[in-house]
């Protein structure tokens, strides 16, 4: 098939097959959930049209086998999903939509630049055999590593913007809370994965075993996971916390991609962990955002203080939320535990590897990364605990409201609950039968990630593996009860009741978008010097026309030169010359003067010619 002059290439096998299935599963769940969630919204027809358009575009991205196909569907996906973000059309969503669209368009264009450079360097954009072509081009001197890096960075910028890698994560915490919940589930669960998909392709094909690239990806991953988790701990909005959590989990996956590149032939654990964490995160975010949607559908609030205590006496919601929260925190026994353990083990493996071949500094760096990894794991538990306690354990500050919350037992339709139970059931099954299901899926996806087969069976439930998880869980509990509970939750005496209030302690000013990006873009888009460059020919023409035909264009008096000329000191200096010119202008002597000027130029030209 040929669209836009590009021969489209699709592949439905291995990793791509699994992810297309995941996408379809998520869309079906979200669409069914939308039936109830969107009941009272306007413009439902538009919502469904663009929902389905985004579905097709995303499948196109995930199944593509060359970068042009990816790019075409990626752009379509960005624009159609914009309509989902701004669905409510109130100022808040419009502004978030602006951020979303700006990041998407800038990311898309930078990616296109990368594709130009890559195509120029290699002459192909097909994933199939890209690694071999790149190797050959490097060896034959057809291209240099620097050029490949420039291309790779541009492409990574585009995909990373969609995935939410720091510092391009700004759209996630803005767009997710205001989009309708089913759309947020998709944005977070699968659209970010479309970005990760591209990051994987570019990393494993062009920069396999490239230490610089691997360390860079790992560093981006570590920074992203930590910052995302930090924002999550401070957040006081249900969906915003989940969005920050998405940023953080994307960091884990990015780290995994870095480890795949770094470990080379020993990347069995890393590739498995990366893929499984993607899979887990998609399912978990579908579940959690839908759960948040259930809350919003009933209360039309997302602030933790407003929704506090809503989940009490709602066992189904509690179980569903707990499954998601435990899995994302990596509590042993859940599917999230498997993927996080694998990622952790891959770091440990690389440290050993680096020490073995004498890269002490790198090993030291990754020791730090390991610590950050474990702390971030703890922070994940911490913010999920914050949400869980808020929803299901704490009581609302307003007892009347709490009573109303408790009364409400019919809070979602059977269909909606089925849409929540499906991913929860999948997650549970995956967690319980990790050795069969998760290993099998990782094996199917392995080739796409350039993963090597494990030398021996990986045991998930041995002490070395559980230890990491235990450290994280301990850190998380300590963090919650010693820091969050003390500092971020203000206790108030309300009569004989002690009620808590969630405090938004994050400084309002500390917002990368407002602080840096918006002013920067405003500066870049101001005309500046180009205003003068643009006006230069006009002013020149005006000047000459005044000399040649004095009456032409009398309106030129408007032009601001005049006010400068009459008012500033620089202008006054010029004025005396100008007055002399004015008095001479109408005389014949002025004409002679011009003629003499021409003659002088001619003579100078002759002189130069003679000398040269």
């Amino acid at each position, binding site marked *: 098939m040929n*669209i836009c002059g590009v021969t489209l290439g699709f592949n439905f096998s291995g990793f791509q097959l699994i992810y297309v299935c995941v996408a379809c599963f998520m869309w079906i769940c979200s669409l069914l959930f939308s039936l109830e969630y969107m009941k009272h919204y306007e413009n439902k027809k538009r919502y469904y049209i663009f929902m389905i358009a985004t579905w097709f575009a995303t499948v196109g991205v995930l199944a593509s086998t060359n970068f042009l196909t990816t790019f075409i569907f990626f752009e379509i996906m960005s624009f159609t999903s914009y309509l989902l973000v701004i669905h409510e059309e109130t100022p808040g969503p419009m502004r978030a939509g602006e951020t979303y669209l700006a990041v998407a*368009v800038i990311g898309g264009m930078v990616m296109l630049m990368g594709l130009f450079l890559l195509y*120029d360097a290699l002459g192909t954009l097909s994933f199939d055999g890209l690694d071999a072509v790149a190797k050959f081009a490097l060896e034959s001197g057809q291209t240099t590593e620097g050029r490949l890096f420039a291309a790779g960075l541009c492409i990574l910028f585009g995909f990373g913007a969609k995935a939410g890698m720091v510092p391009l994560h700004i759209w996630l915490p803005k767009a997710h809370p205001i989009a309708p919940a089913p759309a947020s589930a998709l944005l977070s669960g699968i659209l970010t994965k479309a970005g990760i998909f591209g990051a994987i392709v570019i990393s494993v094909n062009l920069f396999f075993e490239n230490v610089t690239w691997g360390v860079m990806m790992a560093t981006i991953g570590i920074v992203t996971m930590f910052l995302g988790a930090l924002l999550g701990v401070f957040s006081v909005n249900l969906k915003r916390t989940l969005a920050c959590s998405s940023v953080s989990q994307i960091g884990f996956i990015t780290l995994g991609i870095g480890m795949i590149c770094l470990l080379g032939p020993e990347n069995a654990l890393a590739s498995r962990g990366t893929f499984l964490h993607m899979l887990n995160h998609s399912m978990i975010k579908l579940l959690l955002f839908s759960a948040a949607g259930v809350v919003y559908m009933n209360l039309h609030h997302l602030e933790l203080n407003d929704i506090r205590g809503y989940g009490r006496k709602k066992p189904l919601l509690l179980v569903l939320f707990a499954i998601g929260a435990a899995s994302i925190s990596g509590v042993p026994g859940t599917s999230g535990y498997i993927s996080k353990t694998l990622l952790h083990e891959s770091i440990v493996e690389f440290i050993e590897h680096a020490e073995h071949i004498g890269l002490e500094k790198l090993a030291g760096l990754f020791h730090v990364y390991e610590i950050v990894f474990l702390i971030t794991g703890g922070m994940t538990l911490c913010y999920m605990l914050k949400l869980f306690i808020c929803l299901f354990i704490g009581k609302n500050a307003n007892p009347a409201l709490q009573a109303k919350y408790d009364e409400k037992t019919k809070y979602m339709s059977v269909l909606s609950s089925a849409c929540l139970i499906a991913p929860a059931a999948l997650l549970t099954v995956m967690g319980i039968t990790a050795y069969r299901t998760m290993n099998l899926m990782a094996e199917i996806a392995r080739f796409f990630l350039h993963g090597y087969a494990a030398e021996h069976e990986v045991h998930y439930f041995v002490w070395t593996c559980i230890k990491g998880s235990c450290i994280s869980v301990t850190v998380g509990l300590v963090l919650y009860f010693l820091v969050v509970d003390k500092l971020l939750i203000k206790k108030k005496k309300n009569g004989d009741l002690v009620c808590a209030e969630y405090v938004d302690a994050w400084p309002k000013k500390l917002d990368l978008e407002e602080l840096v990006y918006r002013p920067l873009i405003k500066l870049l888009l101001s005309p500046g010097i180009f205003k003068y460059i643009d006006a230069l020919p006009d002013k020149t023409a005006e000047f000459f026309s005044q000399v040649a035909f004095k009456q032409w264009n009398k309106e030129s008096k408007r032009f601001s030169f005049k006010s400068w000329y009459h008012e500033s000191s620089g202008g006054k200096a010029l004025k005396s010359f100008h007055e002399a010119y004015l008095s001479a202008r109408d005389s014949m002597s002025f004409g002679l003067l011009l003629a003499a000027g021409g003659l002088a130029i001619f003579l100078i030209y002759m002189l130069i010619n003679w000398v040269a």
Partner: protein
Amino acid sequence: MNFTFGADAFSWIFFGLVTVMWVLVGIFTGKYGEANHLDHMPRFWLFYSLTYVSLAALCFAKSFLSMYLCFEFMTLLSMPLVAHEERPEAIAAAKKYLFYSIFGASLALIGLFFAGRYTDGVFAAGGTLDMSLASGNEKLLLVVVFLTVVGFGAKAGLYPLHSWLPTAHPEAPGPASAVLSGVITKAGVLCIIRVIYFVFGADFIRGTWVQYTLMAMAMLTIFMGSLMAYNQRHFKRRLAYSTVSQVSYILLGVFALNPLALTGSMLHIVYHAIIKNTLFLVAASVIFSTKHLHYVEDLEGLGRRMPWTFGCFTIASLGLVGVPPFAGFLSKWYLATGILSEKIPVISWMAPAVLLASALMTAAYLLSISIKAFFPRKDLVLDTNEFGKPVTESPLQMVLPMVILTAFVVVLGIAAQPWYNFFSVIASGVF
């Protein structure tokens, strides 16, 4: 000096483009002129058709002399279109248009004189420069080529002589600015293609300062045009600066002297003509319905009242930004990869970067209008026009040409391969 006419592939492409645009804009004008009480419509139709004739003649000119004459005719005959509304500003704008075009043409005249001496003046692919005469005078001839291209560049809005566009377009009636911007600027491009590829030959200027300077000028124009467009509040002036920027995309590809880039240029000639005509017709349609709206911020909420008009606007804008699957993506792709493969130091990688920076700004200045029109933030949405009547969609006779043009944007974008094949054969034939 020969005074000959004849047809080659370029003639037919440009002639086809001119004809389709003239017919569609003509249909639009039928209603626009009648209901807008534009006086002297017969005069408008007279010069509208005469301009068409001179453009058609320009397309089929086969020697420098005949091309030059048609070019001058076209300038003179299109001038009354700009001045049509007879307001003092319109007349001043027409004068400015005339001044820039005639000045440009006088630069091109230099080229005509030299071409008469050093070439046989009749167009032939690869150029007809007589090397036995030219050897020893290369430096002089390069200056001549440069001045000629800059001269014809006045029509195409190339930098130093671009500023008639932002003045003339806001003053001209909507349909006139549509053809002026979408088609007549392309006449400048055609002349430049003729001069470079058919008179002096691409090999003569390849790798010289002329090529590099012209490419740098085109890049400056692209960037400056987009930046200035973003900073305009006046709707039609914004579109005019956008034309300045976009036509230089085409010129950049022409100056790259590369078959791929030239293919990209030719695709962009077609795409830009379609898209810019759509956008200017949208502007005209808005003025038709509201009678008085000229500024971008006034368009708030109009998308709901004029869904077809702004639907066309949005799709055409996406095309101009280069968002697949709409027209505009492929031309950018070939322009950029063609220029990159030329391996000119600095310019090679800077040109794609400038193209994309400009595309970003295009997104900023066009899509922001779409968003405002469809999702108004204020409650202050315009309900009635100047005469107190509710704002409604323009009549079918105006909507239809826009919809047809927009359909082209979609169809030519999705089914681009046959066009690419067609153009690439033609483009590689001139080297």
